[in-house]
């Protein structure tokens, strides 16, 4: 009974940008920029607070170029994962298969790149292979979810264990040392302006997803499904097709992330994927992706990852007890969800 005046008009948003938008190209760009900042100011503020606290606490060491370089480099892989998983969340679903997909793709990378277990060396061909493999697993999750009409978190939970099992099976449960030095240099290097290559990869995919989300039919349909699936269907959107495509895209991201992960670690094993889902979900939530679906863009995923990476880097630097670090991450997740969740849509908590 908390909404007695159902016919009351909500306040009109102050369209403080409208004036600017009419002012030609420059004005339009400025407006877009302002709008971008406006959408993520809360996240930028959190990032600033994290930097301030650790910056002061570490006597400036946290904000040194070297450390920033390290944070940005570390954020690369989680950013790729989060760019994938946040889209499932946007559709109002949940993807628990992340660790399994990373495991299988990681092990396959280990076995196909130059290694000391077999005589394979596919070199750069590994990229299309992990893309195809990750995409195929994502496709499978999507098909199970839509065709068998199963909640996505159940479908993907199953897929996660199936592929984690396969990964152990084909790797024999061992770590596979990778000996492809070229790849290794590429992944850990900083070839352009001293920016870590991994960070550049993250930025590249960020832009790709921004375009996907606002300038493709499937991207817009994804948000419509997250907002109201029935209405999306009524609008003539092939909901199942969109879902399967988005799951496949996410699988591709997991595959690419797995490739970078194992080459950076210089070794592949089924367990490389372990404990990656939690930071990716936390990053999405911290970045402002609503767990009830429909809200949150690629920028939110990326910013969220940067915040989480900075937080964890800072805690290590300040020598915070590792167990306490985990607890802090948990608190951050709960707080972020509490702040972003759309309770009106949830109706009541299940």
């Amino acid at each position, binding site marked *: 009974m908390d*909404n007695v*005046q*159902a016919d*009351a*008009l909500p306040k009109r948003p102050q369209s403080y940008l409208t004036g600017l*938008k009419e002012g030609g190209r420059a004005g339009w760009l400025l407006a877009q920029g302002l709008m971008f900042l406006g959408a993520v100011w809360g996240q930028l503020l959190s990032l600033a607070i994290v930097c301030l606290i650790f910056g002061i606490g570490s006597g400036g060491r946290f904000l040194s170029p070297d450390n920033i370089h390290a944070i940005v480099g570390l954020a690369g892989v989680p950013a790729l994962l989060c760019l994938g998983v946040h889209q499932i969340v946007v559709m109002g679903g949940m993807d628990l298969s992340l660790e399994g997909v990373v495991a299988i793709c990681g092990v396959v990378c280990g076995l196909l790149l130059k290694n000391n277990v077999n005589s394979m060396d596919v070199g750069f061909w590994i990229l299309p292979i992990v893309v195809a493999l990750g995409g195929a697993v994502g496709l499978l999750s999507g098909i199970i979810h839509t065709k068998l009409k199963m909640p996505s978190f159940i479908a993907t939970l199953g897929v996660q264990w199936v592929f984690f099992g396969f990964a152990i099976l084909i790797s024999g449960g061992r770590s596979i040392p990778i000996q492809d030095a070229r790849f290794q240099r590429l992944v850990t290097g900083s070839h352009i302006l001293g920016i870590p290559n991994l960070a550049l990869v993250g930025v590249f995919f960020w832009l790709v997803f921004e375009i996907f989300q606002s300038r493709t039919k499937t991207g*817009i349909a994804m948000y419509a499904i997250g907002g109201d699936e029935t209405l*999306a269907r009524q609008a003539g959107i092939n909901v199942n097709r969109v879902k399967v495509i988005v799951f496949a895209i996410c699988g591709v991201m997991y595959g690419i992330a797995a490739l970078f992960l194992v080459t950076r670690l210089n070794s592949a094993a089924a367990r490389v994927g372990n404990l990656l889902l939690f930071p990716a979900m936390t990053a999405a939530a911290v970045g402002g992706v609503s767990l009830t679906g*429909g809200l949150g863009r690629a920028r939110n995923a990326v910013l969220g990852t940067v915040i989480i990476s900075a937080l964890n880097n800072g805690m290590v630097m300040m020598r915070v007890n590792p167990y306490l670090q985990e607890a802090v991450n948990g608190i951050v997740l709960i707080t972020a969800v509490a702040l972003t969740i759309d309770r009106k849509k949830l109706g009541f908590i299940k």
Partner: protein
Amino acid sequence: MTANSTSVVMMRRMSKRFKNVVALDRVDFEVRPQEIVGLVGENGAGKSTLMKILIGLYQPDDGEYLLNGRPIKFRTPQEAMRQGVGMVFQEGCMVQNLSVQDNVFLGHEDGFRRWRVLDRGAMRRECKAILDRVNLRLDPDTLVRELPPAERQMVEIARLLWLLKRYGAPNPVMILDEPTTVLQEKEVATLFAALREIKKEASIVLISHRLEEVIENSNRIVIFKDGKYVDQMPAAGADIHRIEELMVGRGMRGNHYSEDKQRIPAPNERLRLENVSKKGFFEPMSFSLREGEIISLVGLIGSGKEELTKCLLGVARFDGGRVFVEGKERTIRSPSDAIRHGIGHVPIDRRQEGLALDFNVADNINMLVLRRLKAHGLISPRRERENALHWVEDGRIKTPSVKTKCGNLSGGNQQKVVISKWLSSGVNILVLDHPTRGIDVGAKEEIFKRIRALADHGMSLIIMCDTLEEDIGLGNRMIIMKDGKVTREVECPGDAKPTPQDVIEAIV
């Protein structure tokens, strides 16, 4: 009706049955170019069924459907859309978290593709142009959930018009199902002004319970009753009473609101508000409500009347002033406080707030009094049933059994269940928020009678109605608010009701 070569839609002998129920019985229906057809009838008269056949959501069992003179058969609403037949549903079909332009083009973005991606600039411009057509000045990037209902509806109409035109239909047909229920008077005027513009290039089928509106704004009125076509007439000069008669099949007299049954309330005060106020919503005001009295709270949106009732019901809080219930000072901090002090609430949106639609009739009626239905510490099924049966009978709720899901009842009967729920809980002050919204003429009269009976039994009521006539007709007294202030109090004795003209200037 004769076959007319100029008609856009021509339907003959349309029939549709659902299991044992005949929803449509050999109905004829025609839409001519550039006209607004008002389609009226009680709930269950078959209007919606026919419209759903028109847009391909249902398939008819029998009958002929000609579009622009050619026989046609739509399998899906998308197909109908491409041929220029579309509908704006009562409940709306906009995705809340998308922007206006994303909603407008949702599912039909293909035309904007440039370099394989969508050209946002072009979409924005097109969207602005579309909104201009219905005189809506809006930033296309605004999220739909931030729009007031009236603008949302205009966006939907604009969207439909664009879609219908998009696939090149020469004379699109737009169906509007109860477009004015969510609108305020001023917005209704804007809507119809826009529709008159649209009429120049399209035909409109207007379904509405508000007959005055239909008469004033359509060209032709078609009346359905019990799944059958009854009559049609030109709207100009149509007599509302005649239409009502045709709709319900029985004469509706002047004594619409059972004014003759209106009682003079008992002298004792049940509720007294002293200088209550809420900053930004209403200034200090006082009034009292007597036993068996009906007060109509009248005012436009923003007059402060909603906030006043919210505070009274414990959803919001008064800033200052004192509340007395039965002579004792009370503070109301939450809805459960309000219920404890005997104040109940029949909300405007019974489907969302008033009823648990998935629960059966008995569960809903018993919801507030489960404690009283206990035997040996557990809730007794026998007592539950008895209590529910008593109130079903008392409220003349038409339901196959007390175990029927409320979602399967008609709107009028759902409303009666909500009222019964409060009666069974023993409250003696009831706030009725638009009790007859979305309920058809016949059922409305029953609700009016029910309200009278409640007052007769000593219940004190505060009502806010859909129309001023209803407010005047039902109330013992009207309290008129404007811009947060009480502008007038008007006595409305049963034998000397003021006319709407008498009081309108205090409202606007």
